[in-house]
């Protein structure tokens, strides 16, 4: 990195209040005597960088990520605090806004990556946020070195102080002003060695927990704006249908209703081309008036091109599709020859349903559009995507669009789509006023971007010694890459079937093929997208092979994984997959559940493991049936996600992922009939409640010196197969369709 670039990368700024700011912003702004106005707000509504040192030596650290419950508002600032050697107990964390700007070298984000998806926040922050903290510390030490006339390397730091060789401690606050006048070092600053860590690896509680438990935490849906009207939409229930007739006479009579108008669905080639239901917007003084107005509407619909689509028809189409050739995703050896030579071939089909995200906080958006700028407040996972959507629909340059990020009531991939942002912009433009768009729960369940539906057909060829000689995985699914040009360019199987996933590279003959199904359902990523989608099939089938060949299900997996080694892995989470790390989590999980111990009283134990986005996890459950309900007596989750930044946060992610996995595997499916989604509430899309859940999830995180991999998604893919395997052990019923409970009760 050249000196100039370095200065652009890390810059330092002194505010009028004497605060030192260190961040990733262009040096152009950094040494201006005038401080940008947005850095001076008394309430710090907008922080200009990552670190601020107040006169009382309190360190304020900016959190750049989208906090959707994965804990980045705590864990990302920990990375900065570590290298800054800040006293974590006195750190205050502030949520940063979206940091898009146009710098001397073009478009940039002054805070670096801010989106939440693919469990990448920690891996990204590991690269740049530690350096941001280290540079801030370097500057403070340099300031102290100048003050004491001592060489830089004779000074140490501890808990927001620089320490003189004689033990004298000087608070960072007293050095901030001098530090701000020093040029950052030309080369990256050396980072701490792990044995020096005081923050990383220590349990840290959610930084804004007090605000949450007192009701003061502000979620996107809690934002209000003077002069804004509240909008709700009556959306066409038919996929890609349209408005036929409207009678809004009664709706307009509701006190508080200000306007009623049609919002068309997106037309091909228009500025917003993803799925968006056509519908009727009701704009009112408050939510209740808007909702009453909506229920007073009389609207008829044109059903559109998918009027015949149903879950039953899709199943038939999937079975039919599997008779074709499909698109090869990976082919090793000669599977056809393996089939011919096989002593025995096992085959089974597994079905996974559409799923909705059902974030507790439904989609919503607050937007004010002015001729030369716009302000957006709302819960997001992709602020960059939201910014682009607003720019495309308003014609505003992205640097004129301010996006305030808030704590989000869940994400799970739902907010990677910005359809609700687009809707709010369309409504605000028509209304000519700032708009707060609200979605109700039925809007949310009926107009989601659903986890794809899929039918997996797995085959295993065995020789006379019951050794696995070949493995075929055929997957017919409603691809996530559809409809939109930029998505259609991607391989259709991407997001449903990963070339290098287990058991690729572990069997001599492998055939993986994808069969694309047409559907009108909007599809999108759902927590650990392709892994929750296919691990159920693969890890259930391995269990079936073990039973059929009278092998131990853990031993079989370990035998397949073989010696610890790294295999190439092209998908997200690569470039390598370490068989030894997967074997280690599986082995530890088997120990924890006492795999070898025989159970009585109708109890059964099941196990599964999976590699997700660079992390390794195994689950084991001990279950029994209690009438029509499943009792989960023990639930174990073992994970290896590299070095752990916040153990308390990782435990929460693994336990939460496990419970999400249980709730989803047991209960949840979105179905279609007559081209309409059938579920509309928590009554028919029954997220698991406390009574259904194990009292404890025993989370074991294996210690690791490797780079961290993130934690948001690894804790879910192996849940459904481990549960299905446990159910088989307890009942001898092999459930091959999700959700498990309905199918199990049908078969029992």
């Amino acid at each position, binding site marked *: 990195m050249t000196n100039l670039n370095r200065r652009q990368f890390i810059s330092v700024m002194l505010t009028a209040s004497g605060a030192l700011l260190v961040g990733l912003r262009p040096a152009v702004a950094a040494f201006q005597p005038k401080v940008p106005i947005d850095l001076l707000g008394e309430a710090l509504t907008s922080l200009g960088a990552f670190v601020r040192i107040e006169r009382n030596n309190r360190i304020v650290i900016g959190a750049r990520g989208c*906090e*959707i*419950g*994965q804990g980045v508002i705590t864990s990302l600032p920990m990375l900065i605090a570590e290298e800054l050697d800040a006293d974590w107990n006195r750190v205050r964390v502030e949520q940063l806004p979206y940091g898009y700007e146009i710098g001397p070298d073009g478009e940039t984000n002054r805070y670096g990556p801010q989106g939440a998806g693919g469990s990448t926040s920690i891996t990204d922050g590991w690269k740049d946020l530690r350096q941001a903290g280290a540079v801030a510390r370097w500057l403070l030490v340099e300031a102290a070195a100048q003050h004491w006339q001592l060489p830089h390397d004779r000074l140490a730091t501890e808990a927001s102080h620089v320490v003189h060789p004689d033990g004298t401690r000087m608070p960072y606050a007293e050095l901030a002003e001098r530090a701000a006048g020093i040029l950052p070092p030309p080369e990256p600053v050396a980072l701490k060695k792990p044995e020096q860590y005081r923050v990383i690896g220590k349990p840290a509680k*959610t930084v*804004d*927990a007090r605000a*949450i*438990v*007192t*009701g*003061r*935490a*502000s*979620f996107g*849906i*809690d934002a*209000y704006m003077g002069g804004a009207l*509240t909008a709700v939409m*009556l959306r066409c*229930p038919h996929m890609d249908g349209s408005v036929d007739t409207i009678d809004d006479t009664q709706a307009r009579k509701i*006190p*508080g209703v200000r306007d009623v108008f049609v919002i068309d669905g997106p037309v091909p080639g228009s500025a917003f081309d993803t799925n968006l239901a056509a519908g009727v917007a009701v704009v009112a003084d*408050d*939510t*209740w*008036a808007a*909702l*009453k107005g*909506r*229920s007073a509407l009389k*609207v*008829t619909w044109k059903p559109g091109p998918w009027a015949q689509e149903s879950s039953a028809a899709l199943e038939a189409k999937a079975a039919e599709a599997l008779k074709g050739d499909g698109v090869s995703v990976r082919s090793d050896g000669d599977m056809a020859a393996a089939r011919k030579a096989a002593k025995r071939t096992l085959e089974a089909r597994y079905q996974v349903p559409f799923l909705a995200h059902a974030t*507790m*906080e439904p989609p919503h958006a607050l937007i004010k559009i002015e001729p030369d700028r716009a302000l957006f407040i709302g819960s997001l996972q992709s602020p960059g995507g939201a910014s682009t959507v607003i720019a495309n629909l308003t014609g505003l340059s992205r640097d004129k669009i301010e996006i305030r990020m808030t*704590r989000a*009531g*869940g*994400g799970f991939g739902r907010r990677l789509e910005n359809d609700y942002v687009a809707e709010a912009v369309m409504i605000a433009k028509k209304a000519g006023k700032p708009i707060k768009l*609200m979605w*109700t*729960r*039925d*809007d949310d369940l*009926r107009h989601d971007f659903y986890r794809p539906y899929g039918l997996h057909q797995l085959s295993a060829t065995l020789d006379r010694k019951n050794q696995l000689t070949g493995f075929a995985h055929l997957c017919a699914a409603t691809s996530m890459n559809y409809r939109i040009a930029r998505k259609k360019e991607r391989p259709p199987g991407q997001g449903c079937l990963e070339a290098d996933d287990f058991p690729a590279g572990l069997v001599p003959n492998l055939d993986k093929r994808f069969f694309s199904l047409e559907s009108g359902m909007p599809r999108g990523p759902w927590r650990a997208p392709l892994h929750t989608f296919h691990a159920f099939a693969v890890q259930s089938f391995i269990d079936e092979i073990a039973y059929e060949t009278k092998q131990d299900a853990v031993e079989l997996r370990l035998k397949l994984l073989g010696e610890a080694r790294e295999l190439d892995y092209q998908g997200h989470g690569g470039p390598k997959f370490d068989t030894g790390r997967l074997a280690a989590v599986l082995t530890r999980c088997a120990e924890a559940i006492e795999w070898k111990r025989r159970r009585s009283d109708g109890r059964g134990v099941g196990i599964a493991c999976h590699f997700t986005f660079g992390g390794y996890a195994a689950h084991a459950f001990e279950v029994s049936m209690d009438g029509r309900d499943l009792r989960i007596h023990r639930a174990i989750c073992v994970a290896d996600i590299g070095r752990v930044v916040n153990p308390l946060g990782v435990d*929460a992610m693994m*336990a*939460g992922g496990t419970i*999400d996995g249980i709730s989803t595997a047991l209960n949840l499916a979105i179905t279609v009939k007559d081209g309409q989604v059938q579920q*509309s*509430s*928590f009554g028919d899309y029954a*997220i698991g*409640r*406390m*009574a259904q*859940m*194990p*009292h*404890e999830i025993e989370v074991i995180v294996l210690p690791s010196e490797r780079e961290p991999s993130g934690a948001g998604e690894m804790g879910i893919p192996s849940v459904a197969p481990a549960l299905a395997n446990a159910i088989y052990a307890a009942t001898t019923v092999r459930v091959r369709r999700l959700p498990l409970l309905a199918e199990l009760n049908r078969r029992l």
Partner: protein
Amino acid sequence: MPQANAKIDKAPAAAVVPGPIELTINGETFRHTGAPDMPLLWYLRDVLRLTGSKYGCGVGQCGACTVHVDGKAQRSCLLPMSALSGQTITTIEGIASGDDLHAVQQAWIDEDVPQCGYCQAGQIMATVDLLKRKAQPSDADISQLTNLCRCGTYPRIRKAVKRALQLMAEAKAAEEKAAEAKS
């Protein structure tokens, strides 16, 4: 043609109350002059901007909007203002005394319960109510908390309920000791 949203939008049966509705919320008296069928949730949020009570479903299934009406946990999305005349409401914003958190709130922090945090106000309000009804709740009693959590914080909620019991017992013991010392 079925109305997509008819179920949720249907107003709860509301008695017609002439004139303004007076009620007490977190110790203050308020007078509602708007729609009498407006559910308490929307009055709290849209009118008073007390946004700690959350919208999650609008039909009483999720519990994110739980408040106390005359000391009992109720789902505020189902309570029309017309039915609340003269009632005393406590919301999540009203259960701490000044800076002193309620034991349940403190327990939620101690056990680091929240993930996304959206349902937690409702979980806390439901737990405060549970602990009023059951001084020593069993695991089965705790299982009767029906508030939904999409992040899966249930095991930590369980721990936090027990932690709250411990905090309350400690506070009571300290009070008794202080009273003894006085006498």
